[in-house]
């Protein structure tokens, strides 16, 4: 029986995983604040947060199997939401597991670090669920405000302070764009509900309304900032470099995935009627982002900055799937995000492991000859780099991720041939920096004065091993994941001709 979201009790049921996560986060906040800061308390809160995330993940999977549905309301109850939730929780689990080992090392003893991660994850889950621009906005802000604080956790580091302030100011700027865009869309259509906006655009013939188009453009700018798509990417490298490394990974994977999930839902549920207008803008955004991200990444000597630019490049690749706008593209989109999350978080985990020797672990010199001193780490890093590159076999599922996006772009009713060509060319360019890391690890000699890297702590080792195993497993055998992704987006996303029929996108009926 579909949920009736007008009744508070049913709304609570439909939101159960999100509410459990937020409630649990508040309880853990009390645990963290109960006594003085200490490494032991930090660890307790961290393990509590891990258990909570795993429990909510189990809950999401259990709900997804039951396949509930809901009539139009403020919250979506569909497969896409559950798939996105699972992705965010995976990123949160990895980030918290890495933080438990990393934070005390860097002198971050506040247990609230993990609590903020949980709140940010709650915000992401709301973003994936929101079918109302107001709820969507609150989800974005919940995530962003928690992440602003997470970036600045290390109060002894001037870089962290710089990154945090920069992210806060630019984030607030982007928020203003988002809010202005939402206000104009509301002014043009008289509704904040995504489905209603879509229906009214079709019914009232608003596709030429300047107020609506300006509103959509402002929303695009706001989302562009949150996604770190060029030309709105300026903040990403400084922020990723300054943030604690697990949080950099969490931002590159989770925050980006959440922005994408919300972007996809808003664009395909509310604005399919103006597809021809926004398609061009998204096309250019995808093309610029791919080119800018991958070319600037070539010049980076710092691995965290390089991964930041690489994540910008990947934003472009994912935007290609969005520009294609078919059900197949939505499947490719989920598969890509999963592969990308594992590879990026894995790469940041290796940086953390290398940083144990006392340095920051993010200079390329720290990786010289890693194969000779720590063969396990070197092999893991090679898998992550090749996965990000999309190399066959050794890159595991990274290859299939790119392959599916390409396939979706070329087989769409309006083939995105030129975007596909740019994707292939920029992927080739990206080999310049991914393979370079692999090369210095295996071919250079370790510096004689290089500090010995101690064995990884348990949590970090688990994260690295599991990421490598998953990437390689799904690289050989991607079928189950593809089937899942396909089932989650079964209804299909906007048809390219952009008729009123497409308002049914993503609804899970």
């Amino acid at each position, binding site marked *: 029986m579909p949920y009736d979201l007008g009744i508070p009790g049913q*709304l609570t049921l439909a939101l159960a995983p999100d509410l459990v996560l937020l409630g649990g986060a508040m309880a853990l906040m009390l645990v963290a604040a109960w006594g003085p800061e200490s490494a032991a308390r930090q660890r307790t809160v961290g393990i509590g947060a891990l258990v909570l995330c795993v429990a909510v993940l189990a809950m999401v999977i259990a709900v997804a199997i039951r396949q509930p549905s809901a009539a139009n309301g403020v919250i979506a109850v569909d497969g896409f939401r559950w798939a996105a939730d699972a992705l965010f929780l995976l990123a949160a689990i990895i980030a918290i597991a890495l933080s438990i080992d990393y934070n005390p090392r860097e002198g971050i003893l506040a247990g609230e670090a993990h609590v903020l991660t949980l709140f940010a994850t709650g915000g992401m889950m709301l973003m994936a669920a929101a079918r109302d621009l107001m*709820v969507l906005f*609150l989800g974005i802000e919940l995530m962003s405000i928690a992440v602003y604080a997470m970036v600045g956790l290390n109060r002894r580091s001037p870089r962290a302070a710089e990154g945090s302030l920069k992210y806060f100011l630019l984030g607030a700027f982007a928020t203003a764009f988002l809010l202005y865009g939402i206000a104009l869309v509301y002014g043009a259509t008289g509704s904040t509900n995504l489905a209603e906006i879509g229906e009214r655009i079709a019914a009232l013939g608003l596709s030429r309304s300047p107020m609506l188009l300006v509103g959509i453009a402002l929303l695009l700018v706001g989302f562009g900032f949150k996604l770190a798509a060029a030309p709105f990417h300026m903040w990403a490298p400084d922020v990723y470099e300054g943030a604690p490394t697990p949080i950099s990974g969490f931002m590159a994977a989770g925050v980006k995935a959440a922005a994408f999930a919300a972007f996809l839902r808003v664009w395909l549920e509310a604005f399919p009627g103006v597809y021809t207008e926004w398609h061009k803008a998204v096309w250019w955004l995808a093309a610029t982002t791919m080119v800018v991200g991958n070319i600037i990444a070539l010049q980076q000597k710092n691995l965290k900055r390089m991964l930041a630019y690489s994540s910008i490049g990947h934003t472009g690749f994912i935007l290609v799937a969005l520009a294609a706008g078919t059900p197949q593209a939505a499947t490719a989109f989920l598969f890509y995000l999963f592969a990308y999350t594992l590879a990026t978080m894995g790469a940041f985990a290796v940086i953390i492991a290398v940083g144990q020797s006392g340095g920051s672990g993010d200079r390329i010199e720290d990786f010289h000859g890693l194969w000779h001193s720590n063969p396990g780490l070197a092999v893991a890093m090679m898998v992550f780099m090749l996965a990000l590159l999309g190399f066959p076999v050794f890159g595991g599922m990274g290859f299939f991720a790119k392959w599916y996006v390409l396939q979706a772009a070329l087989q769409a009713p309006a083939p995105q041939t030129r975007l596909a060509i740019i994707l292939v060319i920029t992927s080739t360019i990206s080999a310049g920096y991914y393979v370079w890391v692999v090369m210095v690890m295996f071919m250079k000699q370790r510096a004689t004065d290089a500090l010995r890297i101690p064995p990884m702590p348990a949590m970090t080792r688990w994260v690295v091993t599991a990421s490598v195993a998953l990437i390689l497993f799904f690289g050989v055998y991607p079928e189950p994941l593809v089937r899942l992704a396909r089932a989650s987006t079964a209804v299909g996303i906007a048809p390219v001709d952009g008729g009123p029929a497409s308002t049914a996108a993503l609804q899970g009926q």
Partner: protein
Amino acid sequence: MPNFFYELHFYLFGLFAIASALTFVTRKSPVAAALWLVSTMFSLAALYVMMDAHFIGAIQVLVYAGAIMVVFLFVVMLLNLGHPDELSDLRGKWGRLAAGLLGLAILAQVMALSRTRPEASLVQSDFDRLAELRGENAVAAIAKPLFSDHLLAFELTSVLLLVAIVGAVVIGKRRAST
């Protein structure tokens, strides 16, 4: 209702709001700037009242002009930034130029948007609105949808504020042991 007396006051308050806002961004002394911001807030509150949004007008004065600006002034005084003349101005030539261009762009956009009318079928007529306001009162007209249709958004806002406080405390808190 739009008679001469109404129009005159509406534009008077509008002009005063804009003039205060301009003075606000050009002052060097943070205290003077904050006081001009208070004046902007008051003019906006007057505009809200003239548009029959009495409740929002009252809240504007209480929350923005009252609470937030007072706290703001406290912070400015407690931080003791020194004499305003000694403060360096972060806004360079290009910053000013960019801000001016952005302002012009927004002005042009507002002009363009004011020419388009919202769909007639989506606009509640003045008559309906007044009837609603007289039937209940300004507070009930806001409270009802806030605690029924927008209950979820309302609750989420409280979580959002909690997270903002936690984040601020975590960053601002003095370290217990170093």
